[in-house]
């Protein structure tokens, strides 16, 4: 799924567009606890979309560490300028939707995005 399709489906706005926009995203992962994210998407190469309610810089840092190309912020939260700047420096696309997390996930799942694969360890 292209970034543009994700924007269309979730009626998202682009907060930060620097990054690999032509990437084909197959998987998504939604979490507010960064430790959960770190644990779960630990092994796979495929590009993953991170859906989160966290707007702090830690969300961008998590994305950098896990090679996640795009972050989707839910519930229309205000994203601090610092977070956007950090994303810009590191080429991580930042999107924002007004839907709540449940609806965002549902909409994307319906359109064929799969849950990020993870190994039970």
């Amino acid at each position: 799924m292209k970034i543009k399709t994700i924007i269309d489906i979730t009626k998202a706005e682009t907060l930060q567009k620097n990054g690999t926009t032509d990437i084909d995203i197959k998987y998504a992962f939604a979490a507010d606890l960064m430790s959960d994210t770190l644990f779960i998407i630990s092994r796979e190469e495929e590009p993953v979309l991170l859906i989160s309610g966290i707007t702090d810089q830690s969300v961008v840092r998590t994305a950098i560490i896990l090679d996640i190309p795009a972050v989707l912020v839910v519930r229309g939260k205000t994203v601090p300028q610092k977070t956007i700047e950090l994303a810009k420096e590191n080429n991580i696309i930042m999107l924002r939707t007004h839907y709540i997390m449940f609806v965002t996930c549902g909409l994307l799942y319906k359109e064929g995005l799969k849950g990020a694969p993870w190994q039970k360890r």
Partner: protein
Amino acid sequence: MAEKIKIFQFPIKGSDFDHIGNATIETRKLVKIAFEKEECFKNTSFSDSNRDFLRRFGICAYEAEANVIIHAHYGLFKTILCCKKIKGEVIDRGPGIPSILNALTPGFSTASETAKSLGFGAGVGLNNIQKIADFTMLHSEKGKGTSLQFEVWKAKDNEIGRIAMKIKQIIKVLKLELVTKNVDMEKEVKSAYSCDLLSNVLAKAGNESTWLTVQTNINIIGVATIKRIPIIIIAENSTIPRQTIVKAEENGIIIAKGKEDTFTISGKLYELFQKE
């Protein structure tokens, strides 16, 4: 070829939530540059699994760094990179860990509300490191500080000579009686260790191996948790106290009971791992 070692060091300040992850990201950049530019690192088999390797290291480093920021006053994050593995050392001055077993239990957290609002303090940090790194060592002194060491190894070294075996299969073939309920039987193990002395198990048993013993007291669960042992096989049909079983179920550890003695079960297990 001469072996080269690179050492990176970053200071970490406690409660500095604005810069959580900075030391990790900077280290990651330097390691990446070393992989790309330096002959010694480029020629090792790192290059095949570079991304996975970097990611595994990044996760451990991030969790370790977050721990210092959340709990301690200040700390030092040292990375030692050599051709075969990468080692992280995080040493801090702070309150120390009151109970290491509690700290290793998933979901247990003493993080502040500030940390939790930033998405940290889920109580899975140390557990994550333990699961992802190939080696971890944790030392903590109450009131003084904590030191955590972890190593991530070259992927190939890790897999040589090990054959995975489903726990389900082991229980079936060895005709064991399953004692714990609601546990994950699909998990795979690659080795086994037979011993009744807990300290020996702590020192020598491989991570994620099968443990064969006649000990049934509650402490065996603590040891299994620390060594990430998914299954304990109790030999000679020893009676298992109720509390041991409860604790095992809480920690997702399987206990299975066999009628034969340790020697016989060991032998059968050995054959089983060879056969596959």
